[in-house]
């Protein structure tokens, strides 16, 4: 793996508190001593937040798509009738 990717892996291990403890201490020392590393950590943390948000939105879209299938396709007619009956009462 090229150097820049190894660096990303080191930051990840430090942020997520996993991997070799000594490696994490070395990373911590770099982060604490330089603006460049602090910035890398900041952007990488934001990247993780955005990946979570992306995954969350993707799951929501999938749930909506399943709901659409259940309420709009003839395959699920018994389910649709059952629900319709609840709201007719």
């Amino acid at each position: 793996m090229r150097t820049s990717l190894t660096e990303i892996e080191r930051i990840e291990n430090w942020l997520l508190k996993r991997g070799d403890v000594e490696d994490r201490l070395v990373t911590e020392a770099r982060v604490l001593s330089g603006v460049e590393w602090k910035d890398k950590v900041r952007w990488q943390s934001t990247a993780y937040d955005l990946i979570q948000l992306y995954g969350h939105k993707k799951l929501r879209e999938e749930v909506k798509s399943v709901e659409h299938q259940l309420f709009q396709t003839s395959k699920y007619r018994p389910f649709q009738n059952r629900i319709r009956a609840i709201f007719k009462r």
Partner: protein
Amino acid sequence: MLAPTKASISKTREETIITWYEEVFPLAAAHIHRNGGDLDAAKEIFQEAVVLYYEKLMHLNFQPESGDTAYLMGIVKNKWLKYCKKFSTQESLDYIEVAEESIQKPVKAKLLHYLKQAGEKCMDLLQSFYYEKLTMRQVADRFEYASERSATVQKFKCLEKVRYEVKRKSLSHEDFLN
């Protein structure tokens, strides 16, 4: 045991969601109807409950003692109560969950839009590991990499790309992330 393929992984998730709808949605709908809600409200509440429950199972390795139905119904009842309270102040259900509110900031949504344009495949790969919590073996199978090692290298390449784009977009739009 065979490793799950791309189709089987997503099929499992879809099948799980369909089962929850078939088994629990009628109960949720009846509860909401009894308490004055309509079908649209029931759909909205149930969608939220399914997302919340699925995330709980994915992220926390959560094993409900009382089963899916009881747990989902617990979430539905709780959300319905909050919905009724919020409804009186004309706020959307989307803003009920504090955790969700914190990640739904418009700047992040804007940034996410740019990232999707820059590379949806990378975002799909990254979310499968960091959000869905698949193992690297499963990620390699889903995205058809020859080995876990190749998938791991690609994961870090994607992360590098995303980090670079986040920095570039954030610095070119002063309002981002401040």
